[in-house]
């Protein structure tokens, strides 16, 4: 009994210590005198590899999810003669929940895992050590631009996801199943509130972006520098990020929409 309590205490302390390390790690990477010109160049490069390379999976997934939503939404709503509410249903679902959450899950799988593997391999091949020995802080040079790139990319990707998905549901609902175009767009415009729905969705994806890239760069940096260690770190990034996204989504939804 005492033993298991002791083990539980140890595990709790170790989790707290890890959170502390991860927090200090992020603060050391982000706080300090910025080198504006170099920092901007590095950021643009990372925006390209973190953001632009994630675009295809986001657009294709968005299109299919939108089409499925259109199809399922229509088949349910038509029973109540309410298929004209399809635009409202699809847009609110996407802007409030599916856009930020699914884009974040895809981003964790596509960009988060790549970030962890890249940084882990840089550690294994002594590139991080060689930066340190050249008098260049790897936290500022490698970690910071990747963090900001993830942070900026995800909200934009989530917006693109929602836009493409709405278009997908329009294709299925209006052009294929015959919902009135005017009702589809008109009801959507009447129901969607910018602050309540769109802005809250963007806030969610900002939070998810920070959490995913924080987990990804930290796991890469502390990865055991072996092939097995990097594999495990990459898996941890995807698992931890996905759980964090879903858990935080519930909390954020409760705060944002709980009173309604």
């Amino acid at each position, binding site marked *: 009994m005492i033993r298991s309590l002791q083990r539980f205490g140890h595990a709790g302390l170790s989790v707290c210590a890890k959170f502390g390390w991860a927090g200090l790690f992020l603060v050391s990477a982000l706080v300090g005198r910025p080198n504006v010109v170099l920092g901007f160049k590095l950021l643009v490069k990372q925006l390209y590899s973190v953001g632009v390379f994630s675009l295809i999976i986001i657009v294709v997934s968005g299109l299919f999810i939108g089409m499925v939503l259109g199809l399922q939404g229509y088949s349910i709503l038509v029973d109540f003669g309410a298929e004209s509410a399809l635009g409202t249903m699809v847009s609110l679902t996407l802007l409030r929940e599916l856009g930020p959450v699914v884009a974040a899950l895809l981003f964790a799988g596509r960009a988060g895992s790549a970030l962890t593997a890249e940084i882990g391999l840089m550690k294994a*091949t*002594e*590139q991080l*050590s*060689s930066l*340190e*020995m*050249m*008098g*260049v*802080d790897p936290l500022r040079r490698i970690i910071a631009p990747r963090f900001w790139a993830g942070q900026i990319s995800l909200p934009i990707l989530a917006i693109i996801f929602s836009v493409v998905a709405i278009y997908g549901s329009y294709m299925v609902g209006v052009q294929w199943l015959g919902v009135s175009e005017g009702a589809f767009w008109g009801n959507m415009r009447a129901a969607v509130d910018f602050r309540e729905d769109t802005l809250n969705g963007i806030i969610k994806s900002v939070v998810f972006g920070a959490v995913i890239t924080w987990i990804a760069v930290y796991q890469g940096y502390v990865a055991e520098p072996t092939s097995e260690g990097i594999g495990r770190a990459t898996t941890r990034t995807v698992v931890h990020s996905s759980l964090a996204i879903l858990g935080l989504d519930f909390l954020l939804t409760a705060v944002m929409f709980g009173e309604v």
Partner: protein
Amino acid sequence: MTEQSDILIKIRDLSFFREARPIFDGVNLDIPRGKITGIMGPSGTGKTTLLRLIGGQLRPNTGTVEVDGRNIPTLSRDQLYHVRERMGMLFQSAALFTDIDVFENVAFPLREHTDLSDSMIHDLVLMKLEAVGLRGARRLMPHELSGGMARRVALARAIALDPDFIMYDEPFAGQDPIAMGILVKLIRLLNDALNMTSIIVSHDIDETLGVADYVYVIANNKVIGHGTPDAIRADESPRVKQFIRGLPDGLVPFHYPAEPLEDDFL
């Protein structure tokens, strides 16, 4: 010149533990300025750890590591990064940045630490690459280089800022005889031409004794012998003799510590 200024790196009573396992226990070392010092010892004795202690990537449990009079473990993060600009290090894996070509790898420290114009950086990089014989390989990517070429590019990068001293971590490991010969020649040439101090950590006895001016042999957490290469070759102490002559068994045992044989089989 006083005796003190002849010593660039002075290590005193250095102890370092990895968890509970001692790596160094009361090590004293002097690295003379302008010379090539070899640090030799069997694999796993912490030779690379010693370089990381000198570079401040690890902190000792006790003892001092003075580089040009400054005790590395007591420096602040900013001071340490500043001091490192005067150090060069050649990693065993070369550690080139894989997303940029040879030219940009060598230009990297210049772009980071100087405000030189592009044309000046161009000339300096080509001079460094010429010194290691790879001016013609400037547009190759790291994955297109052989192991020996990668190490020479890393060497050009390590000397880009004309450091006071350069640390070579197992420079001869895994190299073919020609590449090894080139590296031995380059280490001596660069040390003398650039008036640098060199530290070679290696277990390749012939190459290290051939190029070094002074040698330390490390085993069992301590310095077990030091002297000029000739003195080390002639050393009759059992540990040094076993290492230098490559005897499979001796004071450094062939068997990893284990229970008595009977306990396992009977």
